[in-house]
């Protein structure tokens, strides 16, 4: 019997247990004078019985799946020939894999050696036993659990505490899943990063100003020594993020102020959803908009400025060079992409400023713009800053637009007209294609990922702190 059938049986059993419990509680209620004389409501008794059926059965399935292979392994090991037992762990693992394969019918016993026949036989038997025993045990436990729950339905027993506690634990488990996932991600990135830092010194990585991750694969390969200085990538990331924010913050903030303070209900009803459509555009679409429309336009404008400069003898203009992949183009499009972040968070915090403050200001004769400048904006500022920081971590983590529009050249520059590259773009290029997980080139991606994670984490923590301070202000 496979696992999904078993799960269906458990679910069905739980439902049946619930309804049985429901009926049982009414039966129990009758002699004592009705449901109102029970310690709690029938639905709580029913839930208790359902939980008694569900939880132990689930535990059996879970424990069995975890322990099954370990127990079988140790039992099979005792029947292996003595020479196999003396092998080191890796070689033994290989042999054991072959035994497993033969047991399920891949490969023949002759290739492995007749002396392994008892082991193969044992494994086959144990697997067959396990396949039969687990569903049986599970169903028995389910029935026992249900019976226990059934006995627990007494007029004097308050099932509510147990059910509430079970619900509490269930909610806790749900909320911890996200946390464990985060830990898992950090751990996986962390271990690969540690491998990387064994090959490349930490300070060379953090303070190095040259990024060229090509390293020699063969000993006789020339011209690719590999250097892993992260500074140009950080500079590129920051440059693009600054350009993006310098577009998104003013535009987003002004539209938020317009929407929350000036716009009529009708205008707001049209503009706000329209702005939020921006957030729904896939980043890859922004990417080709940046690469195919904005970047060439930036270049054309740059070229015509240069020609004009050359004709009029303005030297610095005549030397203007615009790369066809520029930080400016990528940054501008990214800025448009994060406008809705800034505007919708700012809109929310501006709306959260109490109306009484507006009234107070108007009552003293302030105009609408004075009220916004002197009262609403300062009051909403912490929340707005929080929104901007969230938008900033979005900009720093954004990949698709920069992959398509900013280029791959790791230039250390603050000139927005040159091609730059970012941390995320390099992670993508390092991990695309065939990988060797023992080369510094591949491992560098994980170190970059960790670096990026730390930066955005810090930004998010600051953002949350700021937003929290704001919340406390009016409570």
């Amino acid at each position, binding site marked *: 019997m496979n696992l999904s059938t078993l799960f269906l049986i458990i679910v069905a059993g739980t439902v049946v247990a619930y309804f049985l419990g429901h009926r049982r509680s009414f039966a129990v209620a009758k002699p004592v004078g009705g449901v109102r004389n029970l310690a709690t409501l029938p639905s709580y008794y029913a839930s208790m019985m359902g939980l008694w059926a569900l939880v132990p059965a689930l535990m059996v399935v879970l424990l069995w799946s975890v322990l099954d292979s370990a127990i079988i392994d140790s039992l099979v090991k005792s029947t292996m020939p003595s020479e196999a037992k003396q092998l080191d762990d890796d070689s033994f693992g290989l042999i054991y894999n072959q035994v497993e394969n033969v047991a399920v019918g891949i490969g023949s016993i002759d290739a492995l050696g007749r002396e392994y026949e008892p082991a193969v036989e044992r494994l086959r038997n144990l697997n067959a036993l396990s396949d039969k025993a687990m569903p049986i045990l599970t169903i028995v436990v389910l029935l026992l659990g249900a019976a226990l729950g059934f006995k627990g339905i007494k007029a004097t027993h308050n099932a509510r505490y147990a059910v509430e506690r079970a619900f509490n634990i269930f909610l806790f488990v749900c909320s911890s899943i996200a946390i464990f996932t985060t830990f898992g991600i950090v751990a996986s990135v962390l271990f690969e990063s540690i491998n990387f830092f064994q090959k490349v010194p930490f300070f060379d990585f953090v303070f190095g100003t040259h990024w060229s991750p090509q390293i020699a694969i063969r000993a006789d390969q020339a011209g690719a020594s590999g250097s892993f200085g992260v500074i140009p990538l950080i500079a590129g990331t920051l440059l693009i993020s600054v350009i993006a924010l310098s577009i998104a913050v003013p535009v987003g903030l002004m539209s938020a102020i317009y929407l929350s303070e000036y716009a009529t209900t009708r205008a707001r009803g049209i503009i706000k959803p329209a702005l939020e459509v921006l957030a729904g555009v896939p980043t890859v679409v922004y990417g080709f908009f940046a690469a195919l429309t904005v970047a060439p336009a930036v270049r054309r404008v740059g070229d015509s400025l240069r020609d004009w400069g050359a004709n009029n003898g303005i030297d610095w203009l005549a030397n203007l060079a615009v790369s066809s992949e520029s930080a400016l183009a990528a940054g501008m499009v990214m800025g448009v992409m994060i406008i809705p972040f800034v505007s919708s968070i700012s809109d929310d915090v501006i709306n959260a400023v109490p109306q009484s403050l507006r009234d107070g200001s108007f009552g003293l004769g*302030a105009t609408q713009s004075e009220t916004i400048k002197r009262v609403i904006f300062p009051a909403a500022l912490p929340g707005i800053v929080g929104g901007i920081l969230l938008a900033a971590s979005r900009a720093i983590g954004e990949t698709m637009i920069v992959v398509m529009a900013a280029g791959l050249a790791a230039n250390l520059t603050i000139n927005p007209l040159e091609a730059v590259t970012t941390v995320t773009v390099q992670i993508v290029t390092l991990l695309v294609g065939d990988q060797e997980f023992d080369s510094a080139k591949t491992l560098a991606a994980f170190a970059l990922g960790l670096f990026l994670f730390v930066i955005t984490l810090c930004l998010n923590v600051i953002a949350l702190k700021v937003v929290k301070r704001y919340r406390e202000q009016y409570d």
Partner: protein
Amino acid sequence: MLDTAKETYQTAGEPFLDEPKMRVRNADVFYADKQAIFDVNIDIGKNEVISMIGPSGCGKSTFLRCLNRMNDTIDICRVTGELFLEDQDIYDRSIDVVELRARVGMVFQKPNPFPKSIYENVAYGARIHGLTDTKVELDELIEKSLHRCGLWNEVKDRLEEPATGLSGGQQQRLCIARAIAVNPEVILMDEPCSALDPIATATVEELIHELSENFTICIVTHSMQQAARVSSRTAYFHLGKLIEVNDTSKVFTNPEHQLTEEYITGRIG
């Protein structure tokens, strides 16, 4: 031109005065299609304290907010009729609302200090109206305003601290100080004590009494005792109509209108 459909209402008592500070004639207020105020006629005298009483939803706050055009901030609100501050029609197109509100200040039900320092709260009006030229003048103005509200001794050492840290009563007096710093002619108070405890209420009532030497004060209150304590005239509103206006003592001892009597004896509430 007379609108024939317009409802008229005859207020009992003595709504009119000689040489009033503010004059209201045939005022109607609508929220969208719903009429909230019906044909109110009243004069507000110079340096008097007039209280507006009446059951909840009777339109007394709405009427008060007409007097400095605070209703302008509500999109669906429409005011018709004639409202004069001395000789000026305050709903005239040429009137500057900013200047009007500098002359007719307002204090609200819930203390609403800005999330700024105590100093900046009082300086707010002076700054937006450009009342002072130098820092010294501004300091003087702030000290004077806080003095008049009896708050100076309590806050003089903590002017730079946030105003939100003051107690409720102190915050409300700060809001009054903020209003009088602009030196208005009329101060509108919308249930200024309803969020305060009895001791803070007494302090504010005393303050209203002192301020009446220099300012005209219109106070909306749901406490008849408060109206009796602080005001010289009282106006009773009922379902959007101004039922009766008379000297406070007369309203509370010998009301002319039956509705007024029912209200002050507790039969409507």
